[in-house]
């Protein structure tokens, strides 16, 4: 399963990175005479309502999905790391207030939080990024906080502090290396979640703007023609499924290999 996951992830990453070389056509070039075509030798996955090549759009969509996933996961992990360290090492009141704030974010069903934010600031790629970061930071921060609480009671930290090390040094030189491993594993397992959220918001028409070919957008456009021309929907759903499956299989394998203790997190 882990090996299968790795191959799928490599396939997706390769497609995403070299999207412009792999795509047979320009993903936004229109051909109104040949619109909503079934798959053929010219267009392997058919064309959409404006005659754009679906395969090229799906390939370009890989780039968007991966770009969103990588950037938001990076920002979320960084923010979560800082907040978690502060909550775990800082004063009690700060810890309690941060935890209460995280509980509040958790109490929103994820799509409801997204819809509330979209209503206030309007749909755009930036909104999608913001929604994802707000939704995922609490999980990272909690994880880092728990590890920090455990590490800070250990003797080498007491020794370091007895020798006069200030909090920044203790935090970044001694606690950080102990909490970063689990954080990276959980981060890699969050990629499918993030990809799903982006596709979901774009499917609702609240994410990436046209004509950018996000998978969710293609699903949204294909949904209107699902009865007579199902190929757009089929073509955009499959890479989404492959990506989430690939990253999940790989993440599970990585987690079991590196950190058996995390096996209980579901």
């Amino acid at each position, binding site marked *: *399963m882990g090996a299968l996951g790795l191959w799928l992830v490599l396939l997706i990453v390769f497609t995403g990175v070299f999207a412009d070389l792999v795509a047979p056509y320009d993903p936004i070039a229109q051909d109104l005479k040949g619109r909503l075509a079934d798959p053929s030798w010219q267009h392997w996955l058919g064309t959409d309502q404006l005659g754009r090549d679906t395969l090229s759009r799906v390939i370009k969509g890989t780039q968007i999905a991966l770009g969103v996933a990588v950037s938001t996961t990076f920002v979320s992990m960084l923010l979560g790391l800082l907040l978690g360290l502060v909550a775990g090492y800082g004063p009690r009141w700060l810890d309690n207030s941060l935890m*209460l*704030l995280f*509980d*509040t974010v958790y*109490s*929103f*069903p*994820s*799509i*409801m*939080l997204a*819809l*509330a*934010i*979209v*209503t*206030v*600031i*309007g749909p755009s790629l930036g909104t999608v990024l913001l929604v994802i970061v707000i939704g995922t930071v609490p999980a990272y921060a909690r994880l880092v906080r728990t590890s920090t609480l455990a590490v800070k009671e250990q003797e080498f930290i007491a020794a370091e502090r007895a020798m006069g090390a200030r909090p920044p040094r203790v935090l970044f030189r001694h606690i950080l290396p102990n909490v970063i491993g689990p954080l990276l594993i959980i981060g890699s397992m969050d990629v*499918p979640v993030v990809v*799903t959220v982006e*596709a*979901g918001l774009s*499917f*609702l*028409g*609240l994410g990436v703007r046209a004509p950018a070919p996000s998978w969710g957008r293609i*699903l949204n456009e294909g*949904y209107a023609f*699902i*009865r007579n021309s*199902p190929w757009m*929907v*089929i073509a955009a*759903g499959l890479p*989404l*499924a492959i990506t*989430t*499956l690939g*990253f*999940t*299989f790989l993440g*599970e394998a990585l987690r079991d290999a590196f950190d058996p203790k995390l*096996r*209980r997190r*579901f």
Partner: protein
Amino acid sequence: MLTYTLQRLGLAVLICIIAMTVMFATVYLIPGDPATIALGPRATPAMKAALTARMGLDQPIVTQLGRFFGAALQGNLGYDVWSNRSVTRMVLEQLPFTLALTIAGLGWAVLLGVPLGCYSAIRRNSVIDRFTGVLSVAAIAMPSFVVAIYCLLLFAARLKWLPAAGAGEPGDVASQLRHLILPAFAIGLGWVGYLARLVRASMLEVIGENHVRTARAFGLPERWIVFRYALRLAVLPTVTLLGIAVGGLLSGAVFAEIVFNRPGIGRLVYDAANTRNYPVVMGTVLVTVMLFVLCTMIADLVVAWLDPRVRKSL
């Protein structure tokens, strides 16, 4: 137990209050005033002034926040910007559809996921166990709206076995149930996987514990050990998960309602978000937050009540 119940209730209320304040604040923190958000950039100053006066937006923020809380306590969540209908009434009209969908999705997930998990734990490494293992990861990873769209495509648009849109004729239970099958399948599928994995993992853990070994040493029948001693403890994390699942299912319901064109609060909040009708969005989101907080609280209390170890320590 009473102290714990009160504490847990206090936390739930506190979270709801913070959620309300945060939502109230976001409308005011953003650049531009709420009247412009609601009416759009092309609204005339007169229209904005009318809306501002009608919704009390010209009062100081603290007064507005106080009025918002006061009204919410009386069950009034504000009024639709366009039709001036009561948000509370709109939500209450749509809520039964979403609740039916959520309960149906959760129901089939529990009925299938829990027995699968139990069986996999008891017959570890059997064919069914391995099969369940791979399938549950796949089910968890698949986005529920993709499942919904593929179901719509295959069973409704192509095979025409089941209806594609709506919630069925009012008063016709058979038709309503038929309309419920595909959306409930789509939103529940991932949770079958979650439940099967969680029940399996906690069963395996409990089976290794002392009291189960003691029961074995006494020669109790295996069936009795599994159902009376092991499952009772193994089900506890599942109850916690069920509380959390409600949040996930409510999210899934939004997509299912849109894909299958069903009425419900997901549809309501989605339509309102598209027209930036923020009182409706805020009110509906708030109701889902309260529902979710209520469910996780009930789950925590049920766990405390079921688990003799926790119950005695309270």
